[in-house]
């Protein structure tokens, strides 16, 4: 499984990188950690004539926290996130979700930018980005554009990125301190892509009612997505067992997964409901009577 013939450019600046992409048009592909791209090359599912390695570009490797949000350079790795002790405080949902990404060796090389650009429907980072309304910065020959994560991903393994554009950073909005949250996913083995996953958070007002509910799901559609119908069940309600069961039912109704070799559609749909129940129960710190 040797890679197809290809050329390789490792530009020193973003401008050079974009220029290189522009020159080669659709025949060039951006590589960073390569953890999604190289397997596709090995199977010859992709055969670009040139790889533009953005790995040496400056300023894309940091995680910075400011009043505007939490900024992740596109080259931040899963290992960087795991080792950044601030994140468990400033974005516990992200930290919890990223713990499920792949394995040790992959985590040392895989990047948040690569994961977003690859846009696997079961991947955690795109799921968190969509759930949290992350804003993505894209740089191309005509300048910079900023898009919300759900506008960025256009389908299974596809995004709005043009052939000469580079995703440079991802900004997650700041996290409220008393926020209720949970992440749940179910995969056949540790580190595998999820059969379904749920990222959930909401805030609590002075009356103890939920507001600002965000429910994002992975692995149940061609892309990660929020479930506004489920969020509507939660907003303005006191989160108890009844509400949670209503939310789970709404989640099952809201998705239309496909059959594949790993699971039939009905399983993913039902699993999503179970995971959402468990996530919301944990977020609300209540114990649901387990059926069956």
């Amino acid at each position: 499984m040797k890679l197809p013939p290809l050329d390789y450019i490792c530009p020193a600046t973003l401008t050079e990188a974009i220029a290189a992409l522009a020159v080669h048009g659709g025949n060039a592909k951006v590589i960073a950690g390569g953890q999604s791209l190289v397997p596709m090359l090995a199977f010859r599912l992709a055969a670009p004539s040139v790889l533009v390695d953005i790995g040496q570009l400056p300023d894309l490797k940091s995680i910075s926290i400011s009043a505007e949000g939490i900024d992740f350079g596109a080259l931040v790795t899963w290992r960087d996130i795991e080792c950044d002790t601030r994140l468990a405080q400033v974005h516990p949902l992200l930290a919890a979700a990223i713990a499920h990404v792949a394995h040790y060796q992959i985590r040392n090389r895989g990047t948040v930018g690569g994961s977003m650009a690859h846009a696997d429907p079961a991947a955690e980072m795109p799921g968190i980005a969509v759930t949290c309304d992350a804003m993505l910065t894209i740089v191309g020959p005509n300048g910079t554009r900023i898009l919300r994560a759900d506008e960025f991903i256009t389908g299974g393994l596809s995004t709005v990125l043009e052939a000469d554009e580079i995703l440079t950073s991802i900004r997650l909005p700041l996290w409220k301190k008393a926020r209720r949250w949970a992440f749940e996913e179910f995969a056949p083995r540790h580190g595998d892509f999820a059969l379904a996953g749920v990222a959930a958070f909401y805030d609590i007002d002075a009356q103890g009612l939920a507001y600002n509910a965000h429910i994002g799901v992975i692995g149940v559609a061609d892309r990660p997505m929020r479930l506004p119908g489920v969020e509507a069940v939660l907003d303005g309600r006191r989160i108890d067992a009844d509400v949670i069961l209503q939310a789970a039912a709404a989640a099952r109704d809201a998705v239309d997964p496909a059959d594949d070799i790993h699971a039939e559609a009905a399983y993913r749909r039902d699993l999503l409901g179970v995971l959402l129940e468990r996530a919301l129960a944990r977020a609300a710190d209540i114990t649901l009577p387990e059926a069956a």
Partner: protein
Amino acid sequence: MSDAAKLLVGSAVERMEDARFLSGSGNFADDLAVEGMLHAAILRSPIAHARIVAIDVSAALAMPGIRSVITARDIGDAIPIIPLRLAPLPEFEPFCQPVIASDKVRYVGEPIAVVVAESRALAEDALETIGIEFESLSAVTERGASETPLFDFAEDNVALRYDAGFGDPDAAFASADYVRTERFSVQRHTALPMETRGLLAEWNSLAGRLVVTGATKVTFYNRRALARMLDLGQDDIDLIEIDVGGGFGVRGEFYPEDFLIPFAARKLARPVKWIEDRREHLMAINHSRDVACELSLACRSDGMILGLRGRVFADMGAYIRTNGGVVPAKAAQFLPGPYRIPNVSVSVEAFMTSKTPVGTYRGPGRFEANFFRERLIDMAAMDLGIDVAEFRRKNLITEQELPYPIDGLVPYEGPTSYDTGDYVEVFERALKEIGWHEKRHLQGKLIDGLRHGIGLGCFVESGGAGPKENAALTLEKDGSLTVAVGSSVLGQGLETVLGQIASDTLSIPLDRIRVLHGSTTLLDEGFGTYHSRAVVMGGSAVLDAATRLRERISEQASNHLGRPNSELRIVNASVVADNGASVSFATLAAGGELQADGTFSNDVRTYSYGTHAAHVTVDPRTGAVKVLDYVAVEDVGRAINPAIVHGQAIGAIVQGLGGVFLDHLIYDDQGQLLNASLADYLVPTASDFPVLRAVTLELRPSPSNPLGAKGAGEGGIVAVAAATANAVAAALAPLNVEIRHLPLTPPRLWRLIKDARERATNAA
């Protein structure tokens, strides 16, 4: 005569092999590199069943670095056919596989062309340019799916049917208080050794000789087969065995590439290396299991089994390969298991489909048969209101009944009997280890959202296949020992085990012993490694050779020291006389060649036996199963190296658990293999099954060989599906779920639970 205090046999000595593997200095097939070496890649059929109308290799030949593209046309009018190595039944012969597809392809992955290039990457580039015009034919992916025979000469797609048995099953079933019939199946999966296959073929034009490096398992047999195909004398070919990254039955059989690569090397008069990549491995190496069974049990109301009937249906894939019908034949033979069942009938139907051909994988047929029978026993016990342990205890063959003949279940094999053992004692030990009496009350209980289940699985397991094995021992001039044996290494630690046997007999320390194995250059004849035979047969041959060598050493020493044999002792690579005089082995070896051949012939099989027990939880909402505890108890007769035997058992349990929960080669109805990558073909990882135990017992040595050993490589896997599926079934019994089909993936268990609920709702 040797110093009994330091015996290595029976001791968990560290392995001789390990230093080279741990330091990265092993020598595996892809590590081979010789001057002028070319690289091959194989064009494989992308469709399951089609006529080949035309092949256009002109674009490939025009590419840089491409030396040759070989198709059936280059091989000639008579395409060599891969012979049946085991159970060569005439019925199977018309279904045997040609080494390359000529007019038809019959499975996804079948070789169509070989590209030979300056590098593997260039060869792969060229594969993409080969144009093939196919005329598509309909694929057959299950039994009875098509009336159209896949082979023109055949009336249907059944390659072989037979019936066998003993006693009077009809009478037994007619008179029984209780009869239950169920259908079960085990999914298609494969062994997945970590090293894919690989070969380096070197043709010496001047000498007219061929050397193929990277062979294993049955090198001498494969040499004979290759010699016939290439029209060479056997002596013109050497098959060389180097380090082998796992075998488990699938690796080392004669595959199409075992002809194609040597053929290419001879055609081009250049060394040619081929390394199977993982994608092609999943579609090219033998698949296995894929057996269904309709099983009936007849019992008295007190639980005594009166009779068993089994109909075995095996998907053989597109061709019959070297192992013939071993998988279904053994699935049928081992249906009665360790139980006293006086009346048995089995039938086998081996049918052809448009999938990769099957062969043996660790515990072939046994993994399946034990699953079928042990599941049905639990169902019967439940129906009769008898505790599942008590049911087994009542029916297990007792030691007084051994040897226990189980003749006639395999038409092409002679009489055979379970040899020695105490099946009941080993069964009780497994109950004790798992805490059966303490935990029984957990069966089916829902605790913190998880249902608990404990399952049992009993087995007998044959090993030590004949007919024979050879060894040659040489005392080198420096006093070190070289052991050459016809057994093959598959990564199991054979060098150490054979070294231990030689060391004890000759009192030579292990670090002065070199064990050479497998290669056809070592001996005139060898038989290889399969059917848990390497220690039983190879070990006994080494023991024989070592004993003879010891006699020769004593004779030499007697002459040298001028003392009679009766006054001599062998101590630490020296011979010491009662009078204190001594001579080292090195001195004796310097005085003249000291060499001995040994052999061991035996047609009596060994039968190890044991019981597995599993404690699982099932999350009824997700279908996730967790193995909380697992214990495998086996009597292996004699463990030459207990740590190696223990490692075999633990490794086999985990492979078996993969077969229960994960491993699954998935085809669509067009015969496309849908998961030819390790991202989609799932095997166990370190976090999946952390709690496992194996208890190796040496209660009853085998009477068939001087070591007393019974095979120990397969007992760890054969009852895993039985015990685990029974545990899962026990956990889900309150939900009226029965387990009949593997694998037990979360979505499949979820479906069973959901369907049972819907049935209950509809009934109410």
